[in-house]
């Protein structure tokens, strides 16, 4: 008999992320990941948001409860348009996958592809 186990994934659109502050994004991600969900962000986070996410993750690590996150994104891409440059948006976030460290494991990553394996607990 094959046991079916479920993985909950939330794919969050660029539009939704654009309307959120950095802190709202980080809180949303951490709350979901701490509940065992895998989060995929269509447009990713800015480099500064990524370090803030890591920083906040460190403050929330608890023995036997939460050991941190696995986060994988591609290197930032330079904003191409003239307006992006004028307004200082020279680096654009790219698709990012985030999950609980004890559940998601990166198998392989390069410039163009991220392969991950998700373990399902009991």
């Amino acid at each position: 008999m094959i046991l079916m186990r479920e993985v909950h994934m939330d794919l969050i659109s660029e539009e939704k992320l654009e309307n959120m502050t950095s802190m709202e994004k980080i809180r949303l991600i951490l709350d979901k990941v701490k509940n065992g969900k895998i989060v995929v962000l269509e447009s990713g986070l800015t480099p500064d948001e990524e370090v803030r996410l890591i920083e906040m993750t460190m403050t929330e690590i608890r023995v036997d409860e939460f050991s941190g996150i696995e986060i994988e994104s591609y290197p930032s891409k330079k904003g191409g348009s003239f307006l992006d440059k004028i307004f200082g948006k020279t680096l654009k976030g790219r698709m990012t996958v985030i999950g609980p460290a004890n559940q998601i494991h990166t198998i392989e990553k390069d410039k163009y592809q991220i392969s991950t394996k998700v373990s399902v607990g009991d």
Partner: protein
Amino acid sequence: MGFISSFRENLGAWINKIFKKKRAKIGLYGPPNAGKTTLANRILKDWSGEGTFGTISPIPHETRRAIRKEGLIINANGSTIELDIVDTPGMATKIDFKEFMAFGLSEAESKKRAKEATEGVIEAIKWLDDLDGILLVMDSSEDPYTQVNVTVIGNMEARKLPLLIVANKMDLPNASPSRIKAAFPQHAMVQISALEGSNIDNLYQAIATNFG
């Protein structure tokens, strides 16, 4: 606001270029066990002849507090640069105390180390705001596409601060600096063995060129 801060950053970068800063505060960053403290100790030994930044260990997160040494004078490429060097704790997105138990530490020691390691990561992140540039130390035998590397590079690019990639552990048989260069071709890279001191003069020349 974005325009003003962008203008200020660009102006600062131009002023630095024109006046060629001769003193710089440089952070050593990278994942745990990339050889940051080994490199920091070697730089200190080569240019001050005494002291160490910290102890070396195969157990990850041996460095759990940032350590700064000031006023190291480095002469290379016919120029002199004075460096304040900050050896930072290894950056990570996860810390599980059980990982330390696998190295033979007791449960209590492992939990203490894990707690201190989380504080160390936060400290390393805070230091990003106070640096003029960084040496990103990578283990040449490991996959360079780690999130720590991607995030640190992204932050340096966003801040328009100089970054020099140090492809360390060239003494290992499976070292592959070309993999690092292919992953981050837009940044200068020097391949060394901090442990053996090989190619270290090239690193000092690159430091003088990139941060001087």
